[in-house]
């Protein structure tokens, strides 16, 4: 820390200018990306009248909390929330175990058949059988209308697997070899040496999996017909899609029950917020020095 501060003092004028410019640009970007969120948030807290007539910018107009009461009180929302939390937690845990294991194996350059397996995974990432054979498969596995259909098929994401593998390849081989000479087996090397020094990437990929599980609605749309098993994002997707349909396509009875704009905004916020807080929580694993520190210590 001391050393760092000393060097900070030594920074040249150009470097300080750069730092200032850097912060300025980042704040500008942050403002541009924050704007739409604040807008939707403000809408969710405003009256329907203000929302549909476009009066709401970044601050609520005629503030109210009724929309949130309505959204949270909806039985479909509460059951969907439960489903989403379950699949996200189970899915992320399972996916991390399965993916990390495979990535570790595939990060070993001399493993016989390594390239074959890698190409096998990449091929699987690019070629898809389509809705019908997938549906028939889920049916024959008895997975239709079960939360497992939302978890199992997504446990291995090849993209995520390659990123972890990539990271493992960068970890110093010497640490592993030392442990191996001490008689440690592959599993204990993975758990006691490789994983602790890979926390940043593990945090990142956990986030990717959690967000993917939380946001996936397509599987549920196809495989789930029981309303009480619908995840939250499907519920949101339906509400948003419903209002996008041209008026001429909607039967009168459904048209009379279109979700009000302010409620829609509240639903967006309520379905998005739980997953947004995951990242700030994971950021503590992004702190520099944890890597070498943990190994040395």
């Amino acid at each position, binding site marked *: 820390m001391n050393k760092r501060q000393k060097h900070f003092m030594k920074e040249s004028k150009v470097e300080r200018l750069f730092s200032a410019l850097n912060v300025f640009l980042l704040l500008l970007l942050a403002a541009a990306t924050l704007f739409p969120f604040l807008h939707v948030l403000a809408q969710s807290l405003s009256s329907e009248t203000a929302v549909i007539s476009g009066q709401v910018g970044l601050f609520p107009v005629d503030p109210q909390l009724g929309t949130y009461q309505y959204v949270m009180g909806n039985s479909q929302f509460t059951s969907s929330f439960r489903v989403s939390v379950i699949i996200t937690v189970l899915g992320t845990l399972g996916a991390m175990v399965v993916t990390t294991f495979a990535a570790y194996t595939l990060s070993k350059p001399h493993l016989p058949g390594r390239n074959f397996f890698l190409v096998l995974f990449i091929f699987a990432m690019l070629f898809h059988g389509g809705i019908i054979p997938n549906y028939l498969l889920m049916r024959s596995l008895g997975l239709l209308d079960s939360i497992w259909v939302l978890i199992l098929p997504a446990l291995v994401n090849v993209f995520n697997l390659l990123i972890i593998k990539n990271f493992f390849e960068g970890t110093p081989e010497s640490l592993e070899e030392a442990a191996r000479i001490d008689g440690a087996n592959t599993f204990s090397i993975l758990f006691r040496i490789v994983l602790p020094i890979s926390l940043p990437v593990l945090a990142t990929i956990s986030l990717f999996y959690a967000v993917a599980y939380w946001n996936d609605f397509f599987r549920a*749309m196809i495989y789930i017909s029981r309303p009480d098993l619908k995840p939250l994002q499907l519920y949101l997707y339906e509400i948003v899609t419903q209002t996008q349909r041209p008026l001429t396509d909607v039967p009168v009875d459904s048209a009379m029950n279109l979700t009000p704009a302010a409620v829609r905004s509240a639903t967006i916020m309520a379905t998005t917020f739980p997953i947004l807080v995951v990242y700030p929580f994971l950021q503590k694993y992004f702190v520099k020095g944890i890597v070498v520190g943990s190994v040395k210590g």
Partner: protein
Amino acid sequence: MKRRLSLRTLLVVVLVMALSVVVHAQVVIRHMGNWDAFDPNSDIVAEAIEKVTGYQVEYSMLPVENMNEVLSLRVSNVGAYDSLKLNSQQYNMLTAQKALLPLDDLLEKYGQRILEVIKEETWEAAKVDGKIYGVPEVPPAPNVNHVILARKDILDELNLAVPETVDEFYDVLKTIRKEKNMLPLAMAQHNFALSVVTSGFGIYHAWMEVDGAITHQVEHPKMKEYVEFMAKLYEENLIDQDFPVNATQHVVEKFTSGRAAMIPFAWWQAPAVLAALEQNVPGSEWVVIPPLKDESGNRGIEVDGGILWFVGIPQGAKNVEDVVKWWNAKLELDNHKYIALGDEGVHYYEENGAYFPILPVFEDERNMANWYLTGVDQELYPTYWASRVRKNAHMSKVYDAMQELRQWGSVNPVAWAPALPTVSKYTQSLNLLTQDNLVNFIAGGDDVRNYGDFVDAWRASGGQESTVEVNNWYQSR
């Protein structure tokens, strides 16, 4: 060994018997309908239906998108569903694949009430090759749904009368732009064929009878003129310059904030839109623009007609008799009314033969009743249904004003056609093709002189086949 075996057999026999008794006592009907924004198993209407029919029902829904694909996948899973509520495209698709059970005998035996309350002509229209595969449900009323709503206070201020002809309509828009410098007519991309305006060119709905044959509006001799007229409006900045990208939300925003003088309007938009207008523009008034007259003084506007839903049984369903009994029970006089309206004095009250909702109970407990219907009493249901419109004062008022246009009402001739597989196959993609091209012509992306090329493309993309199919039916009617 032997004894143990026989004991086991006995045990199995007893178990099976016990089980069959239990299963028989608890027939659970699995009913699937199209998507709507609620959970049909937890809604109170489900309870009400179970109470009056005695049947236990497990409801499920098709997804909001890819519904036809998912429907075919689910129906191909034989025995998974007992009762289906289908739109006409889905009905066509499943009957063409012989995936539905013929119902004639079942209805004769267990569905007397159903046969009674649905009109003969409706049954006829539901038949495929002379057989009934679905109980037809007609729209709740011959409603006029789409018009143009204008700010009456602005028309009055500028001494403008409600336009009756295409020329008057043009003058009104022109004057509003000139005098008020406001957007005369806001619109979205799917408003490319404004029925109020097409009426001025003799076109009332997608399919029109012209000289004894059925012609799609795309091929209607006057359609090109309509497009030219709209292109002129766009060119002269009399309609929304952003209309090719606008969604409904943007249009509503312009009207309710007082920036636009007219919008394409459906009566169910009234609660939100008119409340917002009232609040943002105090003293504003509205008026419905009636369909415009053509050169010979004729006019027309589409009213709901034909069959909206078909309720059928998939091949291989288990409890077919119970399903028909269940449908039948729901249509018994008292049950039908109870399911649609609830209890008198609790959910609704009656005044001069009309029904009015008691709020908020009606909204909470009968709002979704329509989703559960499996056929309606064609005489009585329209009076039940009308109560829904009266949930809201704005809606009630606009609805009544719009229904005065029924005097010019006209039903799309194809609405009453039975299964037309080619038409239903191509409808969606042809509609989109039409929207894409008309938006382009109107907004100046393409010259209207190329309209003929578009018609050729439309014909080649299934329009020709569809027209032939429609006319074969029409001539053999």
